[in-house]
Structure formats: C-alpha cells, structure tokens
C-alpha cells in the first residue's frame, strides 16, 4: 500500500444541476438531485462503459493513478488517469454521448418518476454496444 501524494493528480466534477431543475421543477431537493446523478452514472454511463468493454473503474474518493468515475452525491467525479490519450478520449466521448442524449429529452418532467427515469436512461444507451457505435452515435448527435 502506498500513499498517493501526486500533486498533479486532477479530476473533473460534473453535475446535472440545470437538468435536475428541469426534471423536478419547484420540487427540487438535494435528495432527488443526488438520485438523478446516481441514476445517470449507474444506468447510463456505467452501462455504456460495460457495453464498450472499457477498463474504467468505479471507486469512491480520488487520487487514483488510472481513470475513475465516482458518485460524489451532488456531482459525478471523473479522475483523469495516466492512460494513453486515445483511451481518455474514448471516456470523454462516452460521457459526452450520455450528456448529449440527456439534453435531447423532450419532456424532462416525466423523469421525476424514479422508475420511468431508470427505464429512460437505460434506453438512451442500451443499443450502443461497442466503441465504434459510441463514436458514430456521438458524431450524429453533435451534427444535429
């Protein structure tokens, strides 16, 4: 066991604050926002990582030498590791694809229901089964 004391370790924390307010309206709370974050991470991003067969770990905390995604309650934390640039770009494409698809949701208020939300988020990326498809879908979404 070694202590990670690399001062150059960095992570990006991203959140869905604006989207959460569209989903929950005046019923916004810390609890439902955290639930939305966790759903996007588990049912969207993690599933896509698995579909693509990428070696992205999911551990709490930060300071890891390899890339890592973790739920941080109000945010999702992405620690940027020392992998090759191509792999890091694939992670970025994958997270971007989920976010682009979420931005296209026509009726965000319907996602306030946890069951509907789970099904919807899973459906966003369920058909994206490999890395080639991720790149293609992302390009199509960005070209719109």
């Amino acid at each position: 066991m070694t202590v990670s004391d690399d001062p150059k370790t960095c992570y990006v924390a991203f959140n869905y604050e604006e989207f959460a307010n569209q989903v929950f309206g005046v019923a916004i709370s810390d609890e439902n926002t955290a639930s939305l974050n966790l759903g996007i991470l588990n049912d969207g991003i993690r599933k896509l990582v698995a579909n693509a067969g990428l070696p992205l770990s999911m551990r709490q905390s930060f300071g890891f030498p390899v890339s890592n995604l973790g739920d941080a309650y109000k945010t999702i934390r992405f620690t940027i590791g020392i992998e090759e640039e191509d792999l890091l770009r694939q992670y970025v494409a994958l997270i971007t694809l989920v976010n682009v698809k979420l931005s296209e949701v026509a009726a965000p208020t319907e996602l306030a229901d946890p069951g509907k939300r789970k099904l919807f988020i899973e459906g966003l990326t369920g058909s994206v089964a490999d890395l080639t498809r991720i790149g293609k879908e992302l390009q199509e979404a960005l070209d719109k």
Partner: protein
Amino acid sequence: MSSIYNLNGIVLEADPLDGALEAVEIDFLARPREHVLPLRLVTAYGAFTQRRSLDFVVADHQRKTYVVPSDQLTRAAREDLVDVARLAVQHLGEILPLAAELLTDDDPVPTSDRPDLASHQVTALPGKAFLEAAWARITAHG
C-alpha cells in the same frame, strides 16, 4: 462576474452582457436545494418587482440567473437586492412552510417582454401566490 455582495453565504453577482444588459446571479451557499430555490425566488420577486419595478427575465432553470437592463441596475437597485436577499434569509423559517403549501410550477409572475431581453429568457418565475404570501410576511415585520 463582479460581486455585489458576498457574506454569510449570500452571493450576489452581476456580469455585463452585450447590449447594455446585466446577468445577475443570486445564490445562497451551503444550503440544501429545497431552501435555495425559495430564497432565490423571493429575492428576485422582492427586489425586481416589489422594491422596484425592473424589466427582467429568468435566464436559467435553477432560477439563479436573471437578465436586467444595465441602466436599471442602479446602485440603489443593487442595495435593494442585497437587502431583500438578507431579509429572505432572516425569514426563511416562515418562507419554507409557505413554499410547501403554495409553490407550484404554474402560476408564474409576469416578466418583461422587452425585445432585447427575449433571447435571454429560459423559463418563468413560478409561484405567484407563494411569492405574494412570502413578501407579505416579510414586509409585515416592517
């Protein structure tokens, strides 16, 4: 962003935009979202429609950012904004039950229809009944 006020978790900022407009941000740090939203709404309502009658639109779904004409965001208007934000926090204990009872996504407060503000409008200022009740409670204390 330039700071209008930053003390005890109340953060008020203004950022000049093109076309003689200002983006005003209203935030309350270290509070849960279920408190922050009513505080932002009451502050905007009190400062922009009750203390003064400013042209404004709501520029994000968090109801954190409001766009107003620069010439209306005078020093006195900024002082009113600070005062109302502080009053909102002081009366939070009275505001929250009113929000639970009256605040809905419908029942909007009218905002400006000025053409130069239109492109900045993202959503409405909700909860007219809640805001009227909250403001009455705040002003009842003199």
